[in-house]
């Protein structure tokens, strides 16, 4: 565990956590709870590059369609394709098995400036 202690969150509800040389990106539990039953997920191709703030994925719940944005810029090194086939599993776990993409980033130190610790992120939501 310890996931929540290590991660940083954006105000658009993405999280990021360092794992070796890579960064794991996903949606916070708050975002998943707000979306409700998730029924569709579209993730980018491995190798594609995105800048901070760009839309990299699309997600839909029964209610509505939303976009997911890059909390930092980087190149995709892995995609959680299992989740694309069973997006409803994101409702059960958005961290350990519910990550969306892994990236390599050279701009983490610059891009992280507006990201919040999970604790501060939760406070902002109150």
């Amino acid at each position: 565990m310890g996931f929540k202690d290590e991660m940083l969150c954006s105000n658009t509800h993405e999280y990021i956590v360092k794992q070796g040389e890579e960064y794991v990106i996903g949606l916070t539990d708050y975002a998943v709870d707000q979306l409700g039953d998730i029924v569709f997920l579209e993730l980018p191709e491995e190798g594609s590059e995105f800048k901070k703030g760009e839309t990299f994925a699309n997600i839909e719940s029964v209610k509505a369609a939303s976009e997911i944005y890059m909390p930092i810029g980087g190149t995709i090194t892995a995609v959680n394709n299992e989740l694309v086939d069973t997006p409803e599993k994101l409702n059960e776990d958005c961290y350990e098995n519910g990550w969306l993409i892994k990236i390599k980033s050279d701009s983490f130190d610059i891009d992280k400036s507006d990201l919040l610790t999970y604790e501060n992120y939760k406070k902002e939501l109150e």
Partner: protein
Amino acid sequence: MVKETYLHDKHVALGAKMVDFAGWHMPVQYSSIIEEHRTVREALGIFDVSHMGEVFVSGKDATAFLNKIVPQDITKLAYEKAVYCQLTKSDGGLIDDLIIYKIGIENYLVICNASRIDEDLNWLVRNKRGLDVKIDNQSHNYSLLAVQGPKAINLMKKMGYDLEEQKSFTIKPAVIEGIKLLASRTGYTGEDGFELLVENEFSEFLWDKILEEGQEFGIKPIGLGARDTLRLEAALHLYGNDLDETTTPIEAGLSWSVPKDKKADYNGKEVIMNQLQNGTDRKLIGLIMLDKNIARHGYDIYFNGEKVGQVTSGCVSPSTGKNIALGYVKNLAEICTGATVQVMIREKLHDAQVVKRPFIEKRNRV
């Protein structure tokens, strides 16, 4: 200011996610939309739909008045019967869709959409000129609870309500658990069920009692989220999505609610009769997506590379697992059941098949 129904605090206590809908703070879901949806299809759900409008129309000319503002023939509506109809403008466009109940001699109950109550009242008043009619908006005094699902009849029987006489689309005064109410065998889910109109002060007691008595049938409170997926599977129109002031009943596929032999004149009759005879420029169709993408309200529909219309409602159908939608398209003969069209989703075209409506077999025909 956002309005709250009498049952608002009950929803909050049940842990509902609340949203603003048509000026009301309403529960969108209590647990999960998919789970709530299945509960109604398989067992029993209770909805608070007190945001809906209740208008009593009475007076010497009540029948003539209503007959003048809807295509349905109100002179043929029998006592304690209900009829689905639309408030039409002179160009055939719709002010609202509603259910009219005959509850006495020259005495009717009109149930209309929360989002349209102001427009409806304005329209009713404008059309009553010279007629002896009393229009009495009682929306603020009544709560409306809907019990829907295959077990709804079991619940009603258990609560001491005799149903032998009550068929679909009828309304009767009833006393349930000592409370006087109007029980209508109608709903917005495609399932059998009842809508119970009760004075506000008794609504909390009735809500609690139904949840308690319904336990053995697996009852759950159901939010507006599942209400929307349930009605869409049953291909029941939602005003504001599938109907508006530019759509006519014929375009909307509601010809079944427009009698061809009605003698009396009504707003828009000329346009509507002409469309019945000569067809319309556009038509409402049902769609099933052929991939995993979901068509949503406002997405464009293409046919042979040409933009032919727009999606008006779309969602995942929890009962079938398919992605379903309603939309308007150019009235081309080629766009028929079985044809393939495309929906523009995130700048890409996705195939969809035109299918018959409803998307599920309705079980509310009693």
